[in-house]
């Protein structure tokens, strides 16, 4: 039983690090802010969750704490992505190129351009 769990854990670690890599690659390559947000944070989150869970499987004594960590990241990471996306939008960082649709425009209170350059 033990070695199989460890092998599964190692698989998860490998899987996770690949996605961490992909996430970073997305951050690096994507053309605009929202795409980076999309590509980067998600893959990274999946990656880190997988990796940490993997570590928990490799060292079963650590599993509980790994799960705590995973749960935390599972809640926190999308929250931060959301907060970043919202603030970027409010800060006038417009979606890249040919945006056809902006349902948020009418309800959001976009901050005015800085009137005073200090």
């Amino acid at each position, binding site marked *: 039983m033990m070695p199989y769990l460890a092998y599964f854990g*190692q698989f998860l*670690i*490998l899987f*996770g*690090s*690949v996605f*961490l*890599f992909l*996430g*970073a*690659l997305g*951050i*690096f390559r994507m053309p605009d*802010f929202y795409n*980076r*947000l999309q590509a*980067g*944070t998600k893959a*990274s*989150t999946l*990656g*880190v969750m997988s*990796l*940490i869970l993997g*570590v928990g499987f*490799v*060292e079963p*004594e*650590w599993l509980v*704490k*790994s799960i*705590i*960590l995973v749960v*935390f*990241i599972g809640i*926190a*990471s999308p*929250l*931060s*992505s959301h*907060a*970043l996306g*919202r*603030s*970027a939008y*409010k*800060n006038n*960082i417009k979606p890249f190129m040919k945006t056809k649709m902006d349902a948020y425009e009418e309800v959001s209170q976009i*901050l005015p351009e800085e009137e005073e350059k200090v």
Partner: protein
Amino acid sequence: MNIVYLISIILIGIAMILGFLRLIKGPTLADRVVALDTMSITVTAGLTLAALYFHRYIYVDVALVYAVLGFIGVIVVARYLEKAL
């Protein structure tokens, strides 16, 4: 060293570098923060892996704290960008 860990470490290292490049490049503050967010997640992963590699449970605690602080840091910057601070 286990080949899995080696590959993982290399991948994580490359991920760090890529994130760092974006951090430097920007162009907007929001972009940098996204890069920072990704990097902090990657560091959390790296710390957990290090705990495994050095076989020290206590490093997981470090990872946990790092994750919390990184998260709140990003939230703060996000709110700052909204000029809510």
